């Protein structure tokens, strides 16, 4: 009985010992690889500040999928004021409506597929890249004004941007893009939908951090 107990305690001690030894080794190595996530952090969080000029505010999450390729998703509210973009100033009913009455609410959804030109062998998003972007912006207007309806804009864009590190963790990322858009305008009176194609552009300036 005593022998069994002794063996049991020994086995327990051994079990304790094994992870302890492994941990000492890995802690030592971790010191070398601890670079504040600069090479291993594949998650990034950022705020696109450029659209605030108009009426958007987008919070973006980016995740590296493979070496040189990452995906990012953005979401944000449409703010209740309106400074039209240059493209919106060129004609069309929706533009007039938007100028006359600022949207009361809405939201923006954005998805990007990014292809980096990484110099090193690292997977971290850094340096210049090309992107394919889909952006959906939904504008809701006040019910008081019967001329305004619900308008959704679908942008399909090709972009080029650069991720510039600011210190260990933070970075700034300007990006420009060109593409096409489809406006889906819903009349508040007849509930009819109208699809209007057009050209779209993108300028974003994101401030971000590696998680």
């Amino acid at each position: 009985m005593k022998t069994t107990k002794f063996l049991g305690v020994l086995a327990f001690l051994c079990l304790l010992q094994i992870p302890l030894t492994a941990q000492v080794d890995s802690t030592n190595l971790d010191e070398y690889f601890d670079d504040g996530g600069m090479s291993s952090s594949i998650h990034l969080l950022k705020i696109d500040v450029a659209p605030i000029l108009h009426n958007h505010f987008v919070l973006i999450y980016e995740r590296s999928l493979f070496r040189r390729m990452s995906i990012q998703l953005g979401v944000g509210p449409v703010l209740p004021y309106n400074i039209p973009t240059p493209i919106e100033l060129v004609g069309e009913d929706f533009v007039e409506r938007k100028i006359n009455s600022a949207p009361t609410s809405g939201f923006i959804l954005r998805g990007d597929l990014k292809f980096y030109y990484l110099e090193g062998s690292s997977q971290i998003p850094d340096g210049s890249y090309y992107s394919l972007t889909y952006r959906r912006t939904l504008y809701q207007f006040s019910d008081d004004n019967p001329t305004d309806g619900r308008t959704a804009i679908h942008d399909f864009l090709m972009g080029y941007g650069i991720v510039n590190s600011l210190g260990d963790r933070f970075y700034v990322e300007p990006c420009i893009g060109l593409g096409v858009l489809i406006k889906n305008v819903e009349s508040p009176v007849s509930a009819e939908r109208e699809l209007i194609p057009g050209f779209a552009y993108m300028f974003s300036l994101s401030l971000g951090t590696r998680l």
Partner: protein
Amino acid sequence: MKTTRHLTKLFALFILSAIIQPLVGQNLTKSTIFEGKGYQHLEEVLQTSEGFFAFRETGKFRTNFQDCFVDKLRPDLKIMATNQLKLERDKSDLLFVSAMSMNDKIYVFTSFPNMKKKIHYLFVQTLDQKNLVLNDDLKKIAELDFSESRGRGNYGAFSVIQSPNKKYFTVSQYLIDQAEGEQLLVFDSSIGLLGSFIHEVKDGSYTSFPAVTNDGKLYFAETESKEGKACTLYGYSSDGNLITQEELNYGLDDGYRYCLLRVMDENNIIIASQRRANDGYSSYVVDGFYTGVFNLKDNNFVYQLSENFEEDYIDRTPEPKPGKKQRSRRPDGIDDLLLREISTTPSGRVYLSFEQYSTFKKASTTTTRNGATGDTKTRTSYKTYYNFDDLLTVSISPKGEYEWTHRIKRNSMGPIDELDWMSYFGFVDGESYNYVYNDDPKNMEKDFDEVASQYRPYSLRSGINTVLISINNDGEGKRTEISNMKKDKIDFIPRHSVLMDDNSLMLFSRQRLTGLSVNMQKRKADLMYLRMTLD
């Protein structure tokens, strides 16, 4: 079902053998093909009791290799196993540095530049020779502080050099833009650190790569200042004590630059350098060489030799026309000549192998005109080309007397991804010195001795011939065609050849594809190892 499978395999083998058949000639005996996947680069070939191990890196871009593969080969080059080495830790990618065989084990050296700490670490792991996987026991053996380095991505590099008896190796670390203090480490074959010390490098000076002797001593040469005013040989014991500090006797006041060091045998090391014709002329003209053999036991030079190249091998500068002023006259010599290799034969003869190497930038200009304003804008872009020209061999007798010089006229050029393709592989076979390189087929029609390769194998489109030049101990050269790319459907990457034993050479080559652009050929072509019998 099984029969069909067997028949398919048999058919595939038949097709494969039909492809390989033209390669099986007098010299090229066997080959193994593996699938091409992007750009490929052969890093190391090691031999242990288990077989040959070839490390190759692949990448989707010309200069960016990311994945490292290891092939285990039999002496007949049959691939027994292939595996991709997992070079990563905590999701951070490691860079492949080199591989080394010691105590019948294979050690793989990798590095990780920590961008936050600004420290570049060097690690070592062993490779399981059966499964071709790296063990988990990653061990840090060196670190390089690159916080002071200029330029993005300049995190320096490590060089790992082994003693001839494979009992010791040294790690030296250097930054690309500066060499203010070089840390040198000496390890034994069980990766035990014997000594670590810092050699202060004077501003503007250059140090050669170190040589490790069979008892773990470390030697290197330092050339002071860009003009090469003086060159000193330093020797350190494995625990870091200075044991030798000897100024080399060039016989001239200045004009030397990069030195090469090799361990010659148990008692001697050999140092050599090209001699610059320093006459206030800005570009690099070489008119001679220096060689010294240093005895490790006596701590003294056995001989030192500083010689001009013979008149016949020097390119003369025409005399200026009378009455015409010349600001700085090009000295007589050979332009851009670099000492590439020091080799010794079994009898103690020393061969110095030089290559003319230079780069030049080719400008292309585009002019755009603004329709509205009428303004024109000119934009010039530059592309760098690399010239690998004449090969020069110098023979020094075992007694330290100059014997002869041999110059091979050559004219090759290529962009950066063709460096390995355009340069050469040199090796000693018995008492002869041999070169393998790619040449233009038109040069084959010319007599090798009178030569002047006027044609450069610039493009894969025009076709290339791989040649073996053998120079005997009397300085007489003989040319043998190894392969004709158009006929054999392969092209060689000579720089990555390896001597397998006394009479065979392993060559790395690509299979030629037709109907594709040159760039696509390089990316898509299957690669193969070929064994060439030298006799």
